[in-house]
């Protein structure tokens, strides 16, 4: 009964054929084969062609070396995502298309070589880091953007220790923050807040 099932199952048939073929190989041949397969698919972690992208380029092995623009470009090519489609990449310059505001450049706030983010939520991740990361003030692109805003927040009676762990939770409330901002702060800062809250919404 079980033997009949194995014969019908295509996966089991392939496995049986593979076993039969491997048994007929010499030991040197098997060693070469195993070494190549283990190096390729286990050590280097190359994706098989059937699971690789449609372009079937050589598997990238420099993920840690690619710039943020390169990573965005790769993600855009790999998946047709309407959010990613809003990003326009020209070399290392990145712009974003926002409804009603046209195309806004982002590269002035970007480090020349950004580390690759972990997931597809690229834009959201960027905003979280800027607002919640304790080391964000030391970052070359955050210093200019958020230091003027950080001072009034501390003055609003919330200690920084409370704000830091609550950073991810505080993010959904951030679209509400720009409402009092135009009245309290300089009028120059208002469009920046709107802009980034829009990116978060995206």
């Amino acid at each position, binding site marked *: 009964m079980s033997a009949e099932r194995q014969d019908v199952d295509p996966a089991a048939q*392939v496995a049986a*054929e*593979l076993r039969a*073929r491997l048994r007929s190989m010499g030991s040197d*041949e098997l060693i*070469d*084969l195993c070494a*190549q*397969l283990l*190096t*390729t*698919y286990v050590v*280097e972690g*190359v994706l*098989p*062609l*059937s699971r690789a992208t449609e372009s*079937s*380029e*050589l*598997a990238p*092995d420099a993920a840690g070396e690619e710039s943020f623009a390169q990573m965005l470009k790769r993600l855009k090519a790999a998946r047709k995502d309407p959010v990613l489609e809003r990003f326009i990449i020209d070399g290392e310059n990145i712009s974003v298309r926002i409804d009603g505001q046209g195309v806004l450049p982002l590269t002035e706030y970007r480090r020349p070589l950004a580390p690759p983010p972990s997931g597809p939520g690229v834009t959201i991740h960027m905003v979280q880091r800027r607002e919640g990361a304790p080391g964000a003030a030391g970052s070359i692109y955050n210093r200019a953007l958020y230091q003027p805003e950080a001072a009034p927040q501390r003055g609003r009676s919330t200690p920084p220790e409370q704000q830091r762990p609550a950073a991810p939770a505080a993010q959904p409330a951030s679209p509400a923050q720009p409402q009092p901002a135009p009245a309290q702060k300089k009028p120059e800062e208002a469009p920046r807040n709107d802009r980034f809250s829009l990116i978060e919404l995206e």
Partner: protein
Amino acid sequence: MALQRLKDQGGFNGDRIESCAMPTVFASGSDWLRTVIEKSDMAEGNLASARIRETTFAHTALRKARFRAARLERVELYFCDLNEIDAGQIGARRIKIHGCEAMNAVFSGAQIAVARFEDTKLYRARFDGALIVRTIFADARLGAASMEKVDFSGARLIDVSLRGANLMGASFARATLIGVDLRDAALTGADFSGATTIGCQLPAEAAA
């Protein structure tokens, strides 16, 4: 100057060689690292048992060059003349051969992994006894790789794409094909005698 450096240092490291005539150069056993060779003539050169890493050959004549038992890693060859090269027993990993002519080239007994042959003419090339893993043969211009009369006899092809390849008159005698994509390939006159195909994607007419 390039020849002197080759003699003194036993290879190249981070060098750029452009428009150099070095036919029949003897570089056997040399070590090449992060080198760019462009518009140069190395025809009939001897690079047997050389170790070549992260190196680019572009618009370079390597006709009848000898790469036997060389080790190539992250090597790219663009628009080179590779006709009749002897690359038997080479170990090649992460190589890219684009826009080259490699007719009658010999890759017998080679071990090729994570490679891409693109827009490269491989008419009558020999891959007999080779172990080819995770390799793509593609031809963007013609829609098919020109691999007429290629010899894969006794070769082991694992996770190889030959999709749409022109394999007319090719020999796969006693070859082992595992996970090979042969969809839309022209297999007229191809010899599959004694070949083992496991988990392959065959052309529609062959599958029927």
